[in-house]
């Protein structure tokens, strides 16, 4: 199957609707076919990205509601709004929904799908039908998981640690099976992106002229393809253990309770980079566009994505320093974890360096870039702190860890997700939003996020363990502060939902409001169905080349 033969969108014939006149016979992908079927059965990567966006945002809302329920319950030391069993299910579902249904697909499946072919000058991804399949596999898995949640939910925590998960009477199997199915969606998308990056680059786009978002997606896809089978296998094992009582993790029958943790973190540690590497990629694009500069140290940023993806596979033991693993193992995993920090530091320095001698326009996406820098540095450094073996003895499984991963994994990813949403909103819909509201909500979200999780770092220092329904009274003040911050955060999201919906309908029409020289902006906004009209664009310059053509020779290195 050649890619070009498969990208004709089914549905209405193009070009017969009056308001397409600006593109003549090449209507934008949004209106090229307006039937429901033309959306549901589309093989157009852009439409698939938009459909992903709908579902992913819906699950983000569900996960967010669970988060607010948790924060409300923790307002008082005793029972507040729910009983212990409901609370245990709530934090489990918060984790499962946010990680498997929101964070993992968020940036790759929405923005990766939409932008990857545009950034490579391709008409679509390498396997468009597989791309559509991955969406439906994702929805099938989500359906299974939701069914399990509605039928009682499970109370194991999103980590599903055995032997507890093998014994609990709650509905473990359907949710795990749902996550197992979603894994296939992840693998399909990953494979598709890898093949696309290898085979679909337009003439002129060499490996080291690929936009850094593509590099990040490439590294992410490698992790998805290599690590997801392990969690798939493991989730099946636990489901089987739970349903048929096999004894795989039962010591009394020769099983091993800690085996689960090794297999689980072998996937779930790299999975952190599945979530955060695309975020790094988005930020490389955003900082270049808004400071009108080529990225400082392009190769360093590109290689460090691959470096993180590689080292990420050998750091899983740092989740298990106090699980009884040997001191020697703890040393190896502790040292390797430091390398992840070094790769991340390289990226941070290069992003800040990009601004040097640039021309900064402080817009909403750039505001999120600032928030992102803070969360990445503070969250990343606290990651180094918990990877320091002796300190982790005290911090392990306390709120310090909760705050740390919400900073680096969630904070950085949410910042990048919102930056991408605002930065590419004109690209996807050809319209723009109200900049003032954008900045207000960005400020609310960044402040709210800090107000939610900085008290949790302190709670962790004070010794409050994770997953506590009730807690000693001395922890109350900080918990109240954290809940107050969460309300601020929720409020920020409501504002975004309102003005973006408004912009979708009434927003001012724009094409490239940022004057960006990223490759994806070379075509119209919104792009036509086949991405480009007329002859194949050429790519004589690297992406984000803002040098005055009159003095285009490269100046001295700094």
């Amino acid at each position, binding site marked *: 199957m050649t890619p070009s033969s498969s990208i004709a969108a089914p549905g209405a014939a193009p070009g017969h609707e009056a308001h397409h006149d600006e593109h003549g016979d090449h209507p934008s992908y949004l209106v090229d076919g307006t039937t429901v079927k033309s959306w549901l059965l589309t093989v157009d990567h852009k439409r698939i990205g938009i459909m992903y966006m709908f579902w992913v945002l819906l699950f983000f809302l569900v996960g967010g509601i669970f988060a607010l329920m948790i924060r409300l319950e923790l307002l008082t030391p005793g029972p507040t709004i729910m009983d212990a069993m409901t609370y245990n299910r709530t934090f489990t579902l918060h984790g499962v929904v946010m990680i498997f249904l929101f964070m993992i697909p968020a940036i790759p499946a929405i923005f990766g799908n939409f932008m990857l072919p545009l950034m490579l000058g391709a008409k679509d991804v390498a396997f468009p039908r597989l791309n559509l399949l991955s969406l439906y596999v994702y929805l099938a898995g989500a359906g299974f998981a939701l069914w399990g949640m509605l039928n009682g939910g499970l109370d194991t925590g999103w980590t599903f640690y055995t032997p507890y998960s093998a014994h609990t009477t709650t509905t473990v199997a359907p949710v795990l099976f749902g996550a197992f199915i979603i894994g296939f969606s992840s693998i399909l998308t990953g494979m598709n992106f890898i093949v696309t990056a290898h085979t679909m680059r337009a003439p002129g786009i060499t490996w080291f002229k690929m936009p850094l978002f593509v590099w990040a997606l490439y590294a992410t896809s490698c992790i998805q393809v290599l690590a997801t089978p392990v969690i798939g296998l493991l989730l099946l094992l636990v489901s089987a253990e739970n349903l048929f009582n096999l004894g795989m993790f039962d010591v009394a029958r020769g099983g091993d309770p800690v085996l689960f943790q090794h297999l689980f973190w072998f996937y779930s540690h790299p999975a952190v980079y599945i979530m955060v590497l695309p975020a790094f990629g988005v930020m490389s694009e955003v900082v270049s566009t808004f400071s009108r500069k080529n990225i400082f140290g392009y190769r360093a940023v590109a290689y460090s994505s691959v470096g993180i993806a590689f080292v990420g596979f050998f750091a899983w033991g740092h989740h298990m320093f106090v699980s009884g693993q040997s001191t020697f193992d703890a040393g190896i995993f502790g040292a390797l974890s430091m390398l992840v920090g070094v790769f991340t530091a390289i990226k941070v320095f290069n992003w800040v360096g990009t601004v*040097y001698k640039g021309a900064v326009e402080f817009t909403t996406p750039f505001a999120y870039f600032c928030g992102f820098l803070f969360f990445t540095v503070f969250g990343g450094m606290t990651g180094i702190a918990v990877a320091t073996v002796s300190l982790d003895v005290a911090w392990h499984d306390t709120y310090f860890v909760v705050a740390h991963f919400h900073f680096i994994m969630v904070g950085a990813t949410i910042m990048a997700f919102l930056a991408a949403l605002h930065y590419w909103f004109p690209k996807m819909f050809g319209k723009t939003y109200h900049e003032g509201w954008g900045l207000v909500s960005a400020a609310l979200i960044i402040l709210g996020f800090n107000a939610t999780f900085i008290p949790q770092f302190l709670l962790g220092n004070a*010794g409050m363990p994770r997953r506590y329904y009730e807690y000693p009274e001395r922890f109350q003040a900080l918990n109240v502060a954290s809940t107050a911050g969460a309300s601020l955060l929720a409020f920020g999201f409501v504002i975004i939902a309102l003005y973006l919906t408004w912009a979708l309908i009434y927003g001012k029409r724009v094409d490239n409001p940022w004057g960006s020289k990223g490759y994806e902006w070379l075509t119209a906004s919104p792009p036509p169905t086949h991405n480009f009209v007329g002859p194949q664009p050429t790519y004589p310059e690297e992406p984000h080349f803002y040098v005055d053509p009159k003095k285009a020779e490269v100046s001295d290195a700094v």
Partner: protein
Amino acid sequence: MSDLANKLLFLPERASTFADRIDFLHYFVVGTTMVASAGVGLAALFMFFRYRRRVENQTTEYVVPNLKTEFLFVSVPLVFFLAWFAIGFRDFTWFTTPPKDSMDVYVMGKQWMWKFSYPEGPNGVNVLHVPANRPVRLLITSRDVIHSFFVPSFRIKMDALPGRYTQAWFEATKPGTYQVLCTEYCGLSHSKMLAEVVVMAPEDYDTWIKEQRRGRLQDRQDALADNSLVPGTARMAEQGQKLAGTQGCLKCHSVDGSQHIGPTFLGMYDRMEHLQDGQNIRVDEAYITQSMMDPGAHIVAGYQNVMPTYQGKLQGPESAAIVEYIKSLRTANVREGASEGPAYDPIQ
């Protein structure tokens, strides 16, 4: 200085040699984190202002880093991170290597309580007595799912795994009572799986443990004395078990350690109970009998005054039989003699 830092960081008081050892690294790492985040943030802010956009579609210079800059980007964080790793790993090795002369205590986690036993007795639930300034090695295991033994003031934590022993050690530095929390999610009452470490001055501890062991001996002699007078505790306990069923005791009191409407019978005898009015009481024959006849007299903290009186419903020998039954329900890991040691070889 370090007291101020402790307050600012909300760290609990330091009460073990391990805490003394690692808190400095904590300040170092957290301090550097703050300085670095502020540094990157301020540098970024400065540049956002210094290099703000002046004209639309402004062009810029093409700037790339040279080798020296890239080398700095890699080496500065690497030096810091490796230094922390080295200090941290040295302390961790110290933490995983108990001194030879440390005193052993066996710790068993189960849903949702901690049991402690000393090689030569006594055994306790949810309260661990240790001497100050002597190393104590905990040999930790679990009866059901994974738990984790965490004492914030000591900065120590170790998972309790079913079917395996893990070990942790500490040397408490000052007498006092310190909270133990379970830090591995273990089900419904995970957040109620609390215990405490009572650190005593060494001489107080020696007195305490002697009394505990003598008390136990005394009990045994009493029991022997009883046996010579009455038909035999075993048969009495058997009779008590039947009575507990027919009289409805077991509707509210479990015999497997789980909490129900009333306190569990398992391990109740000889336990120190905290009462609602703040006092403590040792559960002995007198207290059990009183609780049957006048249940509201001493309510154990955390329970409601809902038990009906059995005054007139139970004859003297019957209530004695129930007491014997409760006495027979010592926790399974009660050991009268010397410890048999762990089922698995402890970690060397």
